[in-house]
């Protein structure tokens, strides 16, 4: 994809603070109308990259293009942004807040108010439209922030950790909203370190670690980078398993005796392995050849020490 066709394009972008390199040589393109996942552990450079994307901070090196403009500030009226750490004016009402932020994005007062009321109605906040923000629950306030991000119908929506702090029901509502935005032809880029959302929503993913690009592509391409792993439960010992064709590593489960994880050579076939087990008379009581989860891919690509939220139990 060429830069000219991209909703967002980064070319060798870097940001340094003194000797510290927060982001280094980052290049990627986001196709219009797609959902793009921006993944990385805490402190990887996600927020710095998003701030550069939005024109809040200037890159030290490289070039950025947002909706064809060299600075997001030049197209700010076509961009919606929800930051990771969110706040609102406590003494303003949800209606006033959404209208104010819509007006800053170039909407006239009357249509901004009409659209704000529509969104508040749609997301179940109509009864609180004129309550002060300080009187709302945290979840309600977060909804108000999300509505303020999309009220001006932006072509590009940038969401920094949008699911953080939302309960499972509201996470589901937000996932549906993101999918609605894609159906309307809008581009959505969101950062997260909760893999399940990215797995379900994203057309393409970018993994960033220690300020550098670790991976960029589709989920399938990410899986192709991963060696196949197979979980076996057997009475055979580790040496027997290591001798099987295509096996490069055998790891015994320290908790469950007789359980092993076999790492296969790239291109090795799991069915051949199963056939070899039967041919060699190895008794199997379990055989699991499921595809690696994004979480595992993330850990493998980003490397040891990365803080990855295992979303099991927190995501819907």
């Amino acid at each position, binding site marked *: 994809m060429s830069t000219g066709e991209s909703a967002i394009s980064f070319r060798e972008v870097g940001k340094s603070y003194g000797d510290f390199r927060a982001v280094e040589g980052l290049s990627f393109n986001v196709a219009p109308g797609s959902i793009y996942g921006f993944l990385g552990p805490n402190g990887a450079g996600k927020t710095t990259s998003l701030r550069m994307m939005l024109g*809040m901070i200037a890159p030290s090196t490289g070039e950025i293009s947002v909706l064809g403009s060299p600075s997001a500030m030049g197209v700010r*009226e076509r961009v919606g942004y929800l*930051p990771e750490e969110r*706040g609102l004016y406590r003494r303003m009402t949800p209606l006033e807040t959404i209208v*104010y*932020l819509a007006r800053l994005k*170039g909407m006239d007062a009357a249509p901004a108010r009409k659209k704000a009321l529509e969104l508040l109605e749609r997301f179940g906040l109509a009864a609180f439209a004129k309550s002060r923000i300080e009187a709302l629950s945290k979840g309600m306030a977060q909804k108000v922030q999300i509505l*303020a991000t999309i009220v001006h119908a932006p072509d590009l929506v940038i969401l920094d950790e949008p699911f953080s702090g939302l309960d499972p029901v509201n996470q589901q509502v937000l996932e549906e909203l993101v999918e609605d935005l894609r159906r309307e032809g809008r581009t959505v880029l969101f950062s997260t370190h909760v893999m399940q959302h990215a797995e379900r929503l994203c057309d393409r993913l970018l993994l960033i670690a220690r300020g550098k690009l670790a991976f960029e592509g589709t989920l399938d391409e990410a899986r192709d980078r991963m060696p196949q792993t197979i979980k076996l439960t057997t009475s055979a010992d580790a040496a027997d398993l290591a001798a099987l064709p295509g096996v490069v590593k055998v790891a015994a489960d320290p908790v469950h005796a007789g359980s092993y994880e076999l790492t296969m050579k790239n291109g090795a076939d799991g069915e051949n392995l199963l056939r070899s087990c039967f041919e060699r008379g190895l008794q199997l009581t379990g055989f699991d050849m499921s595809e690696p989860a994004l979480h595992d891919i993330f850990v493998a690509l980003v490397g040891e020490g990365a803080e990855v939220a295992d979303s099991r139990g927190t995501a819907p």
Partner: protein
Amino acid sequence: MSVLGRIFLVAKREYKHHAQSKGFWLTMVAVPVIAALAGLIPQWVQENKPARAFTVIDQSGGAILADIDATIAADNAKRALAALKDYAADNIPPESVPMLSPMAPARGDITADDVAVFQAWGGVEKAKELLPKLVREGAPAFNPPGPRFVRVEPPPEVDPAADPAAIGTALSPYLRAEKPIAQTAPAYLSSALIVPQDYVLTRPTTAIQYWTTNINDFDLQTLVERALTAEAQRAMYEEQGMSRDAVAAIEQRRVALQPFSPDKQESGGEVEMKDRLLNIVPLGLALLLWMSIFTVANLLLLGVIEERSNKLIEVLLSSVSAEEFMAGKLLGIAGIGLTILVAWLTVGLIIMINGSGPTVAFAHDAINLILSGPYIPAFAFYFVVGYLTIASVFLGLGSVCNSQQEAQSLLTPLIFVLMLPFFLLMPMLEDPNGPIATTAGWIPVYTPFVMMVRLSTNPPWTEVVATGAVTLFFSILVLWAMARLFKSAILRTGQPPRLIEMWRMMRRGS
């Protein structure tokens, strides 16, 4: 949307947000009311102090006691005369005023001679008889003030011939308000004077003892000391062969210097009391300038800390640039400052115009002075440059702080520096074109306040223009530096940067 449109939107939100707060309304109303009360309460307290009972034990023969009684009577008459003058000025038509002769009906200082004339004329009783025929219709009745001091007889158990120390001991329970001295108010003894047996007014060998538990209340002590000193001096003049009348005539002699000012040459040059009073108008404007700027600059600081600490700033900066946001905040809060200023001036003038006689005249003179002189354009200019300098510093420092506590530690030394004009006000008022005022006028952070005070003394116009140009340049420089700091620091997290880091941020600008 244009840059100006976005700045206006931010400014409008700032203005509306603060104008709807209780603090804004409290500031607008409370400050002039507190200022008025600060002026009126001490006067009210002085006028409404309850009468204090005292007793005199004169072991020297009674002459001192007679002098003290005369002093108290003259004090009562003086207070009554002052009240009568004010009452006459407010309630008697000018054509009827001469009928109150021989006492002087106009307001002003009252001399001992005036009191003597008033007492000889018939005093309060005569005035009470005459006033109903002279006052305007609907005028309130004249109520002369009560006495400040009431002399009471010593308690019967006190032996007037005893040793002064023993008398003091005997009076002790009365002075400590453990026992009442009378059945009616004032019921408790405030003080006692003991004149020793061998006391001679002209050549005392011992002192008159003044017993009291209120050792910081000098009213009676001062009154009696002055009266007895004057009496002693008269007696000593008489001993030298002068008649009492001659002494009295000498005492009435006053030498006065009539002040003239070249600024009043058009009207003969003579300086009146009104001119002196009007000198405090620019001073008042300078104080108003200082207070209004600091009040609203603090709002900016608190506002930006809130936006920074609750991370709202990031949403805003995706819609407006840091410069637009800063400009909008400065503009919106300037609107709040101007609203507060107009409210203070209006409430202040309403209070003065609805006050009693002299304040009304002063209010009118002050308004005329403000409207006729260079004060309004000067005030507007100094408000703009002063506000830009101080408010942008507060905004810049707010952009590096996560909490009020952090801001406080950065601001405290700055506040001390900025408060310096307050300490310079009196020397500047006494010598507005002296070295202190002239030097301070060239220091840009002080220029708006200092030059506002100096304007009433017509400093050279070249100096006014030059200091104005310097402070304008300085305010633009500070605004530029603070905008760079604001832009660099507003999204920063963690501890506030050190001064050297702030300097680097200002130089780097992003």
